[in-house]
């Protein structure tokens, strides 16, 4: 299903954190959101999985305004992997994944054979079938993210929404998780910190800066040295990846971009009305 974000604004405690963003994730496309901290990536994603309500604008799921759907209805189409990690309440891996069936179940309804099949399949898809009976709280960071992705898959969503899914993962687990995402071939909205990862896995990138969308397009078009200096405040060269041919950003880790300071970037954050 296609996701369209139209003139979306979000305000938190009176402060505008997203101002009139427009973007489209086409059917089967991986759309990446990149931008510095506080640029509005998470707020945009939270509005799509309905943790936040837009202060203006709307999100269209296959042409229908999300606000017209009951929360459970939209959760059958949109599976989310937020940044939060649950506390330790003695839940097993299987129980966490089975939560993905929540939007399909009425009060008092038990899991049926179909739910068990879908749950087991989702767990196998992320390579965690062996861990079904383990305690979720005991898993490593990489295992947890895979289990949470399995939970989102158990929702059988048409659209996946992921907020920094590779945070705190070592490189190998990052690669595995992103490869899993690409395998899905589902409409995907994903916020990523790692620009090189974003350049490799996303079909289209949307750059957020200070709550506004400042660039959209194929990674090759969007990720230019000028944009990296302007938005991220870094000096970088964009070259071709010797193995994959994707754009590869080589940062200058010694010097920030000329005329750019972290304070300057922070000033722009959220200053828009």
């Amino acid at each position: 299903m296609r996701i369209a974000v139209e003139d979306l604004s979000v305000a938190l405690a009176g402060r505008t954190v997203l101002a009139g963003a427009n973007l489209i994730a086409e059917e089967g496309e991986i759309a990446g959101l990149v931008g510095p901290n506080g640029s509005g990536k998470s707020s945009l994603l939270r509005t799509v999985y309905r943790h936040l309500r837009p202060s203006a604008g709307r999100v269209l799921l296959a042409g229908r305004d999300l606000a017209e759907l009951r929360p459970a209805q939209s959760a059958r189409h949109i599976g989310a992997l937020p940044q939060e990690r649950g506390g330790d309440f003695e839940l097993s891996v299987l129980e966490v994944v089975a939560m993905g069936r929540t939007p399909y179940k009425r009060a008092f309804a038990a899991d049926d054979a179909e739910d068990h099949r879908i749950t087991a399949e989702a767990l196998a898809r992320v390579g965690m079938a062996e861990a079904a009976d383990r305690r979720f709280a005991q898993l490593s960071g990489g295992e947890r993210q895979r289990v949470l992705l399995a939970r989102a898959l158990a929702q059988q969503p048409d659209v996946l929404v992921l907020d920094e899914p590779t945070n705190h993962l070592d490189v190998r687990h990052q690669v595995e998780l992103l490869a899993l995402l690409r395998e899905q071939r589902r409409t995907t909205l994903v916020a990523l910190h790692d620009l090189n990862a974003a350049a490799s896995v996303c079909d289209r990138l949307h750059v957020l800066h200070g709550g506004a969308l400042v660039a959209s397009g194929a990674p090759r078009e969007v990720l230019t040295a000028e944009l990296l200096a302007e938005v991220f405040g870094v000096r970088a060269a964009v070259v071709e990846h010797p193995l994959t041919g994707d754009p590869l950003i080589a940062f200058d880790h010694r010097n920030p971009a000329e005329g750019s300071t972290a304070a300057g970037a922070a000033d722009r954050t959220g200053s828009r009305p």
Partner: protein
Amino acid sequence: MTSATTRERRDQPRRPRPARILRAGPLAALLTAALVLALTAAVSLGSVDVPPGEVWSVVARRLAGQAPAPGTHDLIVWQLRAPRALLAALVGAGLGLVGTAVQALVRNPLADPYLLGISSGASLGAVAAIVLGTTLGLQLPFGSALGLTVSLAAFAGALAAFSLVWLMARRGGGFSPLRLVLAGIGIAQFLGGITSYLVLQTRDEQQTRGVLFWLMGSLGGAVWAQLAVPAVAVAIGLALLQARARGLNAMLMGDETAAGLGVDVTRLRREVFVVTSVLTGVLVAVSGAIGFVGLMVPHVCRLLVGGDHRRLLPLSALTGALLLVVVDTVARTALDGQELPIGVVTAVLGAPTLLYLLDRRLERN
């Protein structure tokens, strides 16, 4: 899972502990059987011991609507001990249930039914009724210290505290766990201060003892007429919470996760807050604030069957019922001629049990 595989796992320390030790079905059957035994023992034991066989024959005659057989302990069994044992079961079930739900509500395993300030309102209401009521010369059934007036005043106090916490917690679009806890603690401190002042105003020793006994919780003086309200409240509360069990599970993982799973988190939290508050109010009104049950029972149950609320809620109710029937029997019979406050027994027995369980759990992790 059988006990054999549990033992196997213990022999392999490197193998991580499974999330649940027991299956819910067999455990529920076991707990129910134990509850029946405990209820029998509770009615059987006391200053006059009544053989278990006679207990059940008295109950059977009563239930069949027959006149009590001459020479039996009908009065003791049917009028004195049976309502008290059943009240213990109901209050225990309710406290276990509310404890589990409140821990999910504020996403904190240290929460208990009294965290949100409801019980301090109830205590204030009850103490005010006892102190002011007798000062004004009203006749209260003091032998029990749990008369209808006190219960009504306690429930009114619970509702007042609930309204205050609600007003505080809803600000800022909220009902966030932190807001609920802070509002609850603030209101509890405030009302607790007034209660302490009233306790100091008690005029004679008997009044003070009555107040203190109430504050520590007691099931003394239970009569049949008292059982209907908590029975209905526990049954409805269980049904309402069980219907929301999946939502509670999702909420454990976090508000964003729950929202992503199609749960209207604010609404769910509001509903659970109302259900747990009313139930707490009813329980405290009939028994005072009996401590530790609502904290300990959810932990024990979670350790046994894992964190899924679809299993956890009914099992918490069963375990709470069993625990409080046993504890009340101990409180009644441990000392000759004097009854221990039940809160003392729950704390003395409960705290070490809880510590042992947590310690073992941390070790095995």
